[in-house]
Structure formats: C-alpha cells, structure tokens
C-alpha cells in the first residue's frame, strides 16, 4: 500500500519534471487563475471583496454583450489606437537606435546626448500631448491626419529614450577583447559597427521593446484624450466614464487590454525567432 503510494508520488514528480509539462504549466496556470478571477467577477464575489457595485464594475457578460453589439465601432477605434501605437513605437525606436549609434561612435558627447534624451523622457505624457496638438496644427487641413501626427509624435518621444539607453549599452558593452581584436584587424569604424556592435545589441533591443510596447499603447491611449479628432479607444473610455456609461467604458477598457496583450505576444514570438537565429549564428 505504502509502496504503491510512493510509486504514485514518484510518477507525479516525474510528470511535473517533464520539460513539455513544465512549459505547459507556465501557460495553463495563469489561464486557470484568470478563469478563477472571471468566475469571482461574474458571481459577484469580487464586488463584495472590493466593496463596489455592478454599476461601476459591470459583470463580464454585460461587457461582452456590449462588445459584440458594437463590433464595428470598437474595431474602428481599436485600429486607430493600434496604428498610432505601432507607428509611434517603430519611428521612436528607430530614432532611439540612431541616437544610440551616434552616441556609441562619439563616446565623448554620447553620454551628455543621452542625458538630453533622458530629460525629454521625463516630460509627462499629459503635458506632452496638448503641446504636440498645438504644434501640429499646420500639418494638415484634415483634423484626423494632424491629430494622428500629434499622437504618433507623443508615442515616439516616449519610445526614443527607452531604446537609446538599452541600445547604447548593447552597442558599447562588448565581449572583452573583441573591440581590440577588430582594432588589430584595422577594421574601420563602420565595419566594427556592422559586424560587432549591431549584432551584439540585438538582445538589448528586445529588452527595450518589451518595455516600449506596453508604454506605447498607454501613451497612445492618453494622447487621444487631447487630440482634436475624436477617435480611439482611450477617448472612448473617457467619453463613456464622464457620461457615467460604465459598461460601455469597460468594453473599451477590455479592448485596450487586448491590444496590449496582443502586441506583446507578437513581440515575444518575433523575439523567440530572432534570438534563436542570433544564438545559432
């Protein structure tokens, strides 16, 4: 009897030691936890715990019903937000990387240059967004276009600093002697950059993006508050909360969460593919 139990126990521990099971665990456990929270939410236990009512925190069923009733409208607003977040993320990260290259090649002013970038990064989004709305008034006669430009600039500024700091480290913190080796080959700066520094910076770029992706979504949502043209998930959340339409506001909050999760997952997949190749090479 005790023997059998021992065997069972060992079977169980073997089962959990399995690599595939382990990787499934990291996926299944959070999902189970999520389902658990949703159950508490739908049954009202969560409301009692948080001392709130179904008015400010509507039941998930109601939120989903609103989402399915307004698919087209939510989709249109979601796409506007995603476009701003992605365009800002890409342009900001590119500019950030260029600044990092510049700083890595000119170490003397590199550090102080990054200091200015850090100062720009310290400006809060709520201050930046109305300023950019004012500065982009002459960009286009079409309110949607110039609002888009203002929002993208805000997201870019937020993304720049993050990328330039991380990429600067990736471009400068090289393996010992590798820089000397390149020097001994009499490699020009450009070759050192292309063959040594840039490949070395790839993992750092992904570290930067892991932070930049969620923050670009947040800055896109906030900058929509101040834009001239009324569109986007963030703006809809604000409109609905001010009008005390909490179930509709929650429908847009869920959309905002989905945007963040989706973009982050896409980044994780790309990172997996690129870093695998990077290690092999």
């Amino acid at each position, binding site marked *: 009897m005790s023997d059998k139990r021992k065997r069972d126990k060992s079977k169980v521990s073997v089962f959990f030691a399995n690599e595939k099971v382990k990787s499934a665990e990291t996926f299944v456990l959070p999902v189970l936890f999520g389902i658990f929270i949703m159950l508490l939410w739908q049954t009202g236990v969560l409301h009692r715990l948080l001392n709130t009512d179904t008015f400010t925190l509507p039941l998930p069923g109601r939120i989903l019903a609103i989402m399915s009733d307004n698919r087209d409208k939510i989709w249109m607003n979601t796409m506007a937000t995603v476009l701003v977040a992605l365009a800002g993320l890409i342009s900001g990260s590119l500019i950030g990387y260029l600044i990092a290259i510049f700083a890595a090649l000119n170490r003397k002013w590199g550090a102080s240059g990054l200091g200015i970038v850090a100062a720009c990064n310290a400006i809060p989004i709520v201050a930046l967004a109305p300023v950019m709305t004012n500065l982009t008034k002459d960009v286009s006669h079409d309110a949607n276009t110039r609002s888009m430009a203002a929002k993208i600039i805000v997201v870019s500024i937020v993304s720049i600093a993050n990328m330039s700091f991380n990429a600067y480290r990736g471009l400068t913190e090289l393996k010992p002697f590798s820089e000397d080796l390149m020097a001994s080959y009499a490699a020009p700066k450009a070759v050192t950059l292309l063959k040594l520094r840039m490949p070395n910076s790839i993992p750092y770029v992904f570290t930067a993006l892991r932070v930049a992706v969620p923050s670009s979504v947040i800055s896109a949502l906030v900058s929509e508050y101040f834009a001239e043209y*009324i569109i986007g998930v963030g703006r809809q959340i604000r409109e609905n909360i001010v009008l005390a339409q909490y179930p509709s506001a929650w429908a847009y909050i869920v959309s905002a969460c989905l945007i963040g999760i989706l973009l982050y997952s896409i980044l994780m997949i790309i990172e997996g593919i690129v870093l695998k190749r990077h290690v092999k090479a």
Partner: protein
Amino acid sequence: MKMRRTKLKWISTCCALVLTSAVLAGCGSSAATGTTSAAATTAAATAATAAASTEASASDSTAGETTAAAAGEAIIVKAASEGKVGNWGLGNEYEIQALLQKYGQPTTYLSQAFDMDGFDDDSITLASAMTYNELGLVKNSYDGGYAYGDTVGTIDMNVEGVAMLEDNLFCTSEFAESNPNTVKAFLYATMKGWEYACEHPEEAAEIVFNNGSSVSADHQAYMAAEVKKLVETDMSGNAVTDIGNMDDAAMQQTLDLAKKYIQLDDSVAKDALGALTLDDIRDASYLTEALKSTDGNFGTLEKTEVSVQLKWLPQAQFMGYYVALDKGFYSDVGLTVNIVPGGGDISETTAVNSGTVDFGVTWVSNLISANAGGMDLLEVAQIYQRSGLVLVYKLANFS
C-alpha cells in the same frame, strides 16, 4: 583638442536651447485662462457693452431674429463644410449637433480644448463658448483674455430653438426620500443665495474669488453678470421671477433633444433612455415646499452636514452656493455645507450616485444619460433657465 571640446560644448548647448524653446513655445500657446493680475481698466466697460448688446438683440423684433438666423445658417454651413466647428464633447455637444442637423450638416465636430487657442489660430472657426466664460475671454482684454471685442459674432442656442437646460441641482431619489427636510432646507438656503447673488453680482463675484477662484477677479465679475442673465431669463427671453423653477416645456425640449442626440453603445441603457419621462428625472415638490416657507424652518433635519459637488472649478458659475455659504444662509437653517469643486474629468453624477457627496450640479443632459445608464438621480431645482452655450466666430472669417 581643447578647442574641439569647447566647440562641441557650444553645439550641444545650442541644441538643448533650441529643444527647450520649442517645447516652451508649445506650452506657452496652450496655457490659457490666466490667474490674478491687474489690467482691470476696460474690463467692466466691455462687459457692460456686451450685456447691453445681448439684451438689445434679445428684445429685437422677430424680423431682426429671422435675418440673424439666416446669417447664422450661412455661417454654420460654411464652418461645417470646412470641418471647423468645435465643441468639448463629453456630453456638452448635443446642442451643437442639434443645430448642425437643423441646417442639414453632418453632426461631427472637432474636439475643442478647455482654452480658446483653437479659435484664436483659426483651426476652429466656429467655436463653442459659454456666454459667462469662454465668450468673455474671447471678447475682453483682461488677463487671460483674447481681446477680440466687437469683432466676433455669436449664434445663440436659445434663438435657434435647440437650447437644452444646463446647471441644475440634483441628488439621488433615495437621498431625497430619506432626507426630505434636509433637501428642503438646503434648497431654501441655496435659492436665497442665488437670489442675493443675482441682486448683487459684483459682491457675489468677490465672494467666489475669495473662496479659491480659478480665474481672475475681472473675469469673475464678468461671469457673475452673465450668469445672472441665465438665472433670471428663460429660453424665449422672458423674465423668470422664481429662481430654480423647473419649467416643463424647457425640460421636455431638453429631454427630447437628449433622446435624439445622446449616443449610447450599451443597448440596455439605450432602451432605458428611450423610455425616460420627465417624472424619472425631476421632482418639483421639494422646491415648491421650500419656497413656501418664510422662516426656513422645516422641522428636524435628518442630516445636518451635507456636501455639494460642483461641475467645474470654483467660479461665479456657482455663485449662489458660495454666497449662501458666505452669508450664513446655510447655517441659518441649521446646515453645515461643504462645497466640493469639480474640474476636468470629475463625473458629478457618479460622485452623487456613489454617496461620496449628497448634492451635485450638472447639466440636465448629463443627468439624463446617467439615469439611462442605471443611476437613480433626481433633479430638485433648475438654476439656469436658458442655455448659456453659444457658437462664436470672427466676423472677418465669414464676411
């Protein structure tokens, strides 16, 4: 080497300077309503002329009104076709949308910031303005003003027949039912405050200014004079004697326009909105009884400490409450009142509904959408008898 370093230092300093000045320039133009300062000179005079001209146009013959309306139509059509009509949104847009639809225009508008810079730089040619606030900043030359004087024209929602009622006083029906004497006493003292404020607008402005004003003393004085008109004149320009009166016709017009222009994504709330009647949003009995009283004695008060949530920052828009507090009208009836300023994204309906505060000041349309969304709010007095919203335009842009 040393030369090179100093050169670099200079270049980087210049870069930093350019960056900073660019950001500051943007900041400067976005900074709006100024605070306390002098420049009182022409303010009062301008306010007086503005008041006189508004009164004159209100009492004009119908012929005058029709020509004004025709001119208004051309302006609205032009601005709408260029996509340059502005409003703040967030529940303030329904009158503008009703007006746009009246002249067959699409009901989209630009999101206007809480300053008049968009109007100033012509990115919005037909901008929303409250007669007592933004319009004063546009016309007058005191601190924070844009000094356009008589070079701007306005389109009045009351004249156009799309007016909706704005600042009211409300609580939850539950609160009213369980604290009837408190509600009556609060209404009695508040109406006394409004009456006094309308009789002495200059003193009222000073009281508000001393209570933590968000705008300059000059602007506060202008605002008090304009708010007085909204409290004492109805939508068709007739004088109103009983302050706080809930006029059924005006309420019904507000409800009808609200049902037409409030867009709700939530189908449950949408159905509730369609089914709302006046009895779901207001109860005149508390005010009637409060005004019957001559001494302000309503028996035992169920609650002696109450709070009222304003819709916006402390300004003469809410002078009646500050006057009632300052003159001791509240303490005379045995109430201790806490006035809670609003601003930005404060949702006064939510604050009252959750019990954080007892009373609130909101626009009737906001109360309607809140009740459609499942709240049980009850208007107990209607302070503003006509719409204070106008569309303002530069005459030069439409000549």
